[in-house]
């Protein structure tokens, strides 16, 4: 009993409960048909949200006001440039990944340079940065839509033992993020900064270095996600990152990471990502129009937040 109580005290449990309920609600309507397909699709699409969500989580953990709005633009630019560089050649797959990561590093450093040098709030700094990155992507995207190399395209769209490869990549990245967060000094540092930046500085934590690394990490994860998403969907599109702006924030917060910072939660991102995808497919299955679908999505998100409840702030 005590153990059960402990499980329910975890902030991430709510997003999983919600995801499971929505899954059953969808499968019931189809009479059990398509349960496997639904789970497969949910894992695939949740994986993309998880990858960007992880980066956003590290940034949000840094404390109030820390958020990265350049995620969609970074995804678009990385996807566009990587596909252009690979130019449908299987031999260039690694080079494409490297250029995506390098772009992520450059954007992350640029973001933090703006925040630090101009002393502007991260939300505005990353917004301005995203405008510039988006323009660069528009400029780079000139010409025909380039297909991903065959090997990469088949890797991103196929499965291993019934589990989508993309989901496996996301699980590996999540494990790495968990180790980083819970088992390294860096993880302790970002939590400390999120709880009190002043106290963190007093104890001698390299605050600026840690924040720089965090913004870079977020941009790199977004770039990798853009690389994978462009390969998965058969080419880069200029609006391919658009829905991931709200998504990356939503999955982090619904997953139980404290918006006030200093307390992050990786399992919750998985629950929330699955939940967000399943809600949309449930409403699609029920045959609602676009308007009703949007309204219900919003109300369901609100209901989950209310059910999970605001954490009582200990003063």
């Amino acid at each position: 009993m005590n153990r059960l109580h402990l499980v329910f005290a975890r902030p991430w449990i709510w997003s999983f409960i919600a995801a499971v309920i929505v899954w059953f609600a969808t499968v019931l309507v189809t009479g059990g048909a398509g349960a496997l397909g639904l789970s497969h699709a949910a894992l695939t699409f949740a994986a993309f949200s998880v990858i960007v969500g992880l980066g956003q989580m590290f940034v949000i953990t840094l404390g109030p006001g820390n958020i990265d709005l350049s995620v969609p633009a970074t995804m678009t630019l990385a996807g566009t440039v990587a596909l252009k560089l690979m130019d449908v050649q299987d031999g260039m797959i690694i080079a494409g990944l490297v250029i995506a990561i390098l772009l992520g590093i450059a954007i992350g450093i640029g973001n933090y340079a703006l925040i630090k040098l101009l002393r502007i709030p991260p939300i505005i700094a990353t917004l301005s940065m995203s405008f510039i990155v988006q323009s660069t992507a528009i400029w780079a995207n000139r010409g025909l839509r380039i297909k991903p190399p065959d090997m990469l395209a088949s890797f991103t769209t196929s499965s291993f033992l019934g589990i989508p490869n993309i989901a496996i990549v996301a699980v590996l990245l999540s494990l790495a993020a968990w180790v980083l967060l819970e088992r390294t000094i860096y993880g302790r540092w970002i939590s400390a900064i999120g709880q009190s930046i002043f106290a963190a500085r007093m104890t001698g934590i390299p605050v600026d270095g840690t924040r720089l690394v965090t913004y870079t990490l977020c941009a790199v994860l977004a770039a990798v996600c853009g690389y994978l998403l462009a390969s998965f969907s058969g080419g880069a599109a200029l609006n391919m990152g658009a829905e991931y702006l709200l998504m990356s924030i939503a999955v982090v917060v619904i997953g139980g990471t404290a918006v006030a910072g200093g307390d992050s939660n990786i399992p919750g991102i998985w629950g929330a990502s699955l939940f967000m995808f399943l809600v949309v497919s449930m409403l699609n299955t029920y045959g609602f129009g676009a308007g009703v679908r949007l309204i219900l999505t919003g109300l369901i998100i609100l209901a989950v937040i209310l059910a999970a409840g605001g954490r009582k702030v200990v003063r």
Partner: protein
Amino acid sequence: MRISAETFRQIIPAVSLVLLLGAVFYMQPRAMSYTGLNLLFNLAVPIALATVAQMLIMSVNDLDLSMGTFVSFSACVAATYLQSAPLIGVAILLAAIAVYATIGMLIHMRELPSIVVTLGMSFVWGGLAVLMLPQPGGQAPGWARWLMTAKPPLVPLAIVASVVIAVVTHLIVSRSSFGVLVRGIGGNTRSVARAGWSVLGLRAATYALAGFFAILSGIALVGLTTSADANIALRYTLLSIAGVILGGGEFVGGRVSPVGAVIGALTLTLAGSFLSFMRISPDWQIGAQGAILIIVLGLRLAFNLFEKRRRTR
């Protein structure tokens, strides 16, 4: 004469606006006329109203990520019900204000993060807007059209309206006791509560007022564009936040400036016009807007540093 730090905060946004305006006039002297100014600042009126609404939310340390969809929703109501059946239209808008007040209370009572709650609400407003206008259409109410196309003598309407918005919100936020309490919540919620005020009621009122200004923004927008669609104002979420920050506001601490917010909105609008005068390739339009944002904020930093050095000497 010594200028206080607070005055300086107020002057910097104005200086950046004047500089940008000077650059526009230098490149296109014909803009220096009644019609030219009207064209330059026409779209500033709805943006300024949305920025003021965002500023109210920010003054209690919250952030409204549903601003763009809510303004779109209001625009759709204005172009449909408010035009064809004014009573129902007004009832819908009043209900929307009540929803805003409820959200304000909910966020406080359950200690929820405003970002997530308004994110959820943005889906709801967007859905309602799509239900009302699945395709772009509708028609602006005659009075809204008349108001937004009015031609007052000497000074174009966009300027007159901006000044009126700035003065009215300045009186509400910076001069009234209500405004002091609202900013007090942003500064130190507990001290306001300890002094015997109802934080819940004040937050509800702040959100309701923000909803009211956002509705005005939607109506003004429809008055300009004559018809509406469900995605008409999605950019306003980010524009309104940027406008408040450009105007010298802060995310926390109840440090907001209504006059600054209006000036910030004007600066952002002007940045768009500036770029079309520069004949920048469409590829780089968005990027240049980002660059202008960075330059203006860099200027602000330079001014601040200069001021600090002068002070320490």
